[in-house]
């Protein structure tokens, strides 16, 4: 029992202090690995790889995995809920505040700055994905041939999805599924 409590406490702490997305949890996970021995640094590296190929964020995945390893399925579930708890509490407070002060000129002013910042970060995230999905920097560095820089079949797929999304009003989920199949069939 006390193991589960400690699990919950440790992941609650991680959830509270990691600001700005999944990878922000990494330093806390390394620290937890050193302090508790619940998982190793190699486990963290594996989990990064798994998180890149499953929908969940690294923090949630790591908490589920560590919780499962130390206390079975209830441990896995409770550890990830503990990780999420601080952000839920904080967002609930902010949501209340926003409802009250939405029309305040200073709140509106803050959003005037936050909006371009937010889409700037979304653009940067897109660039990071594109760096692995659409171009092959390693092959380019190895050969120096600009033709090796671009992964042409990926770029063709990207263009087709872009056009397809505009023309066919399918759910983005359908395009994700199709892309996975295309990836397997054409060995991306």
């Amino acid at each position, binding site marked *: 029992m006390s193991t589960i409590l400690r699990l919950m406490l440790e992941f609650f702490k991680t959830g509270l202090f990691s600001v700005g997305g999944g990878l922000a949890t990494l330093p806390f996970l390394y620290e937890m690995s050193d302090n508790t021995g619940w998982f190793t640094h190699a486990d963290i590296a594996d989990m990064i790889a798994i998180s890149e190929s499953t929908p969940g964020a690294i923090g949630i995945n790591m908490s589920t995995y560590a919780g499962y390893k130390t206390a079975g399925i209830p441990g896995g579930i409770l550890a990830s809920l503990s990780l999420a708890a601080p952000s*839920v509490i904080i967002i609930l407070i902010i949501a209340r505040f926003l409802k009250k002060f939405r029309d305040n000129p200073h709140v509106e002013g803050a959003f005037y700055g936050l909006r371009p*910042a937010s889409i700037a970060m979304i653009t940067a995230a897109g660039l990071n994905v594109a760096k692995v999905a659409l171009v092959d920097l390693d092959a380019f560095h190895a050969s120096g041939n600009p033709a090796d820089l671009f992964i042409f079949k990926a770029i063709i797929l*990207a263009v087709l999805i872009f056009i397809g999304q505009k023309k066919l009003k399918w759910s983005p989920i359908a395009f994700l599924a199709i892309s996975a199949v295309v990836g397997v069939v054409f060995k991306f």
Partner: protein
Amino acid sequence: MNELLDLYITFVRIGCVTFGGGYAMLPILERELVDKRHWTTMDDLRDYFSIGQCTPGIIALNVSTFIGEKKKGVPGALCATTGFLTGPIIIILVIATFLTNFAEQPLVQHAFAGIRVCVCVLIVQAVLRLWKSSVVDGFSLFLYLMIFVLNAFSGVLPVKIPAAILVIIAGVTGVLMSMHNRKKTAAAGSADGKEADK
């Protein structure tokens, strides 16, 4: 009760397809929550994302909490958030129990190389969709470019500024700039008033 269940199930679906750090989630949220269910607007979604950037926790999770709260208060927030977590938790439990070297399987690697391409496109579309309501003047374009460069090229810059700090700076300059803009329009307004008085 049914609405809470609806919230939960909707976010289970969204949680199962949120690849690529939550940003690719935006077009999915738009489709599921704005177009299909009319639970929120695209502008509100974008504001939730900006707040999610500078508060603890995963952005996608923060957005789920926001929408759940807006729809059904605290119970709604809990349903949306646990719904969002359900898929990833089950997937990791299955992987931890049955599969070893999951990420090294060639099939998995090919499928996710394909998915990453789609995630790129989804992100580009999210940016295009939000551009008009976010980058409205010279100041916001400047902020956009500055924060993009600082964030995207943080690896090659001498100092790495955490994303949360960048967002806070953007919020504060937004407040100052809009105060300045109001003063300017107020001054222009009173000048007009004097003209009219004559």
